[in-house]
């Protein structure tokens, strides 16, 4: 029986279609307090005083959390670009920033408690757009190493020989391309249940995340815990689109509230909070110029301005990926690129599907059409002629073991019947894009581990440390596990607890155990249930019963 390549139903299909598949807010926790976050009403202000006395006397309020409950100066790690505290410590930098939080017996009491928290602010000048932010000469949102006010990072890339390409060109096209911020709009509003268990000295989290590794890493860091003291439990994830691939801003707050109150805390954002305060796709303003001649793209010049919002988060790596995307797809003589990550007093940007390449590709591909048009060439054929072939080394320095861009373009062109019509309002077009994998972004990031529990009845549980946000990791890993072991076990007795996402974080989780491979697996097996992979914990029906299209042979 070959399960790989077969069309299978997702492992959880019955639970999902019966309404039994549980997401965080579905969990029945009558013992949990309700958490509410108090947010800044100002885009930029000093926090002079937070008075929680009145809130603590509101009936039902059990805890009020402020920055005092965290270590002084603590910041989320965020890939080394750390600048954001879990709760504002002295300054707020966007409307909606977390300033304090209340846990109470009921939601009404929590809201009444939040109303009773008195915060005194001293407003500071705030900049909201890129021009104003760059014009400012003092009073930036953060002290930055770039040497320029409000410029968090300034990246420059000079790949290949752009001068040669420019000297040889016969046509040049240029433009300014604005890509707005965008909300992920997961159907499930963000929610977390946090339970600090004093007897274990451990925090248990049920949270909509596709990356438990990052949640554990960041929450333990800002709460002053060891990583083994934070456990992410497996729970449904109602959409991600990037939103749930890093730590969120409410998980540590709920965790600290629970630790302070000595009770589980349930914190569910409203849709308004989700739109207004959670991280968005970064807005870009890209000025780009392409030079070409004789059917070739010869050089790329670009200056990207990236709206960072008020904190870095993944801004530096998103910006870097945006640049990298410009040096991967085609083979011009060279590219001269720069990008500025600019601080504005707005809701911060974060990781969103495409991770920067979406924004830079938008500019590049619009101009590729124009460059093809300027020399009277078909836009598909022009891209095809410039596509990096298998075996080539890109401007970035990546060696392409395989590249199927030309075939992709052919298939897309055939699919739309080559109707590249451009009406004022609508039309049919082709664009190409490349996404740089995060697998090599950090040392060891390409590594992953899973554990198989072989039970006496011949069934198997497959464990891994990730989470499935609907993109099928559980089913895929069960397929792989099934094929690997099917020779030695009876298919009808297979069970698969499928647990994880083959993403970067999962992989490094085992590495951190500092054990050789076998040790890692053992760790993920036992210890995992404690500190690593309890995020993934499920036994399901035998796979063979779930795959009507591929019965056991």
């Amino acid at each position, binding site marked *: 029986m070959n399960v790989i390549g077969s069309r299978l139903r*997702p492992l959880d299909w019955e639970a*999902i*279609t*019966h*309404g*039994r598949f549980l997401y965080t807010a*579905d969990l029945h926790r009558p013992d949990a307090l309700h958490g509410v976050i108090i947010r800044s009403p100002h885009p930029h202000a000093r926090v002079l005083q937070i008075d929680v006395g009145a809130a603590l006397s509101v009936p039902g309020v059990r805890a009020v959390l402020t920055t005092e409950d965290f270590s002084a100066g603590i910041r989320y790690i965020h890939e080394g670009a750390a600048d954001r505290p879990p709760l504002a410590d002295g300054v707020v930098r966007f409307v909606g920033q977390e300033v304090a939080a209340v846990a109470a017996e009921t939601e009404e009491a929590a809201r009444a408690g939040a109303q009773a928290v008195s915060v005194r602010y001293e407003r500071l000048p705030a900049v909201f757009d890129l021009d104003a932010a760059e014009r400012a000469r003092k009073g930036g949102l953060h002290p930055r190493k770039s040497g320029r006010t409000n410029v968090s990072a300034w990246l420059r890339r000079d790949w290949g020989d752009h001068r040669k390409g420019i000297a040889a060109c016969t046509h040049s096209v240029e433009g300014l391309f604005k890509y707005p911020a965008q909300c992920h709009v997961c*159907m*499930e509003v963000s929610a977390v249940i946090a339970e600090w268990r004093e007897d274990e000295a451990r925090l248990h989290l049920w949270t909509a995340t596709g990356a438990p590794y990052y949640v554990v890493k960041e929450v333990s860091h800002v709460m002053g815990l060891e990583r083994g003291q934070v456990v992410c439990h497996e729970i449904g994830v109602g959409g991600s689109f990037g939103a749930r691939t890093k730590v969120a801003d409410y998980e540590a707050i709920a965790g600290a509230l629970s630790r302070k109150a000595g009770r589980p805390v349930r914190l569910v954002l409203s849709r308004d909070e989700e739109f207004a305060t959670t991280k968005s796709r970064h807005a870009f303003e890209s000025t780009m110029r392409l030079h070409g001649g004789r059917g070739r793209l010869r050089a790329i010049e670009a200056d990207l301005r990236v709206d960072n919002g008020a904190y870095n988060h993944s801004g530096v790596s998103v910006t870097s990926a945006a640049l990298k995307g410009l040096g991967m797809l085609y083979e011009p003589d060279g590219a001269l690129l720069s990008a500025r990550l600019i601080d504005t007093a707005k809701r911060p940007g974060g990781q969103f599907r495409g991770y920067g390449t979406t924004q830079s590709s938008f500019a590049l591909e619009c101009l590729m059409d124009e460059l093809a048009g300027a020399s009277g060439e078909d836009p598909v054929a022009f891209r095809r002629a410039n596509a990096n072939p298998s075996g080539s080394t890109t401007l970035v320095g990546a060696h392409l073991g395989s590249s199927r861009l030309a075939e992709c373009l052919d298939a897309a062109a055939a699919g739309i019947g080559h109707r590249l019509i451009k009406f004022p309002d609508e039309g049919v077009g082709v664009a190409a894009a490349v996404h740089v994998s995060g697998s090599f972004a950090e040392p060891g990031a390409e590594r992953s581990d899973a554990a198989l529990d072989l039970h006496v009845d011949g069934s198997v549980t497959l464990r891994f440390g990730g989470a499935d946000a*609907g993109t099928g990791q559980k089913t895929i890993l069960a397929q792989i596990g099934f094929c690997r072991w099917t020779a030695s076990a009876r298919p009808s007795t297979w069970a698969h607890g499928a647990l994880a996402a083959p993403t970067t974080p999962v992989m490094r989780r085992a590495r951190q155990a500092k054990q050789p491979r076998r040790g890692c697996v053992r760790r993920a097996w036992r210890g995992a249930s404690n500190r690593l992979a309890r995020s993934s914990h499920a036994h399901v029906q035998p796979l063979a019963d779930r795959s009507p299209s591929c019965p056991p042979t």
Partner: protein
Amino acid sequence: MLINGKVHEVEAKPGAMLLDVLRDQLRLTGAKPGCRRGECGACTVLVGGRPILSCIQLACLVDGPVVTIEGLGPELDPLREAFADCGGFQCGYCTPGQLVQAFALIQAGLPSDAGEAEQAVRRGMSGNVCRCTGYAGIVAAVMRVARGEVTA
């Protein structure tokens, strides 16, 4: 209230929405809060056989039997299987609402002409937002059942 064939005594404040009564008091969490303002369809349940948005339905004004995703039995199985086979969901959050809506649509009857039926499905499902699938799988699943290709 008559919910999924059983009479339940519930205590609801005058402003309480049906969705919260179902989820908090009866622990029927299949219907989901998505937008909480009647725009996304994740909270869809049947009242008197008709699909309604339970997040904007005052519980005290419900005047018919309520059926949630949990209350639909084998009669929903063709749609369940078609959704699973056609890629009608990924994260699954909107799926209970989609299924209840699709069930009501098929119960109400679709035009016999295939083209008109698909238009009716697209229109009838347009109030149920899905962020994962791009809808093609959902339309295909409902059409498959509408054409009688899947039987319970």
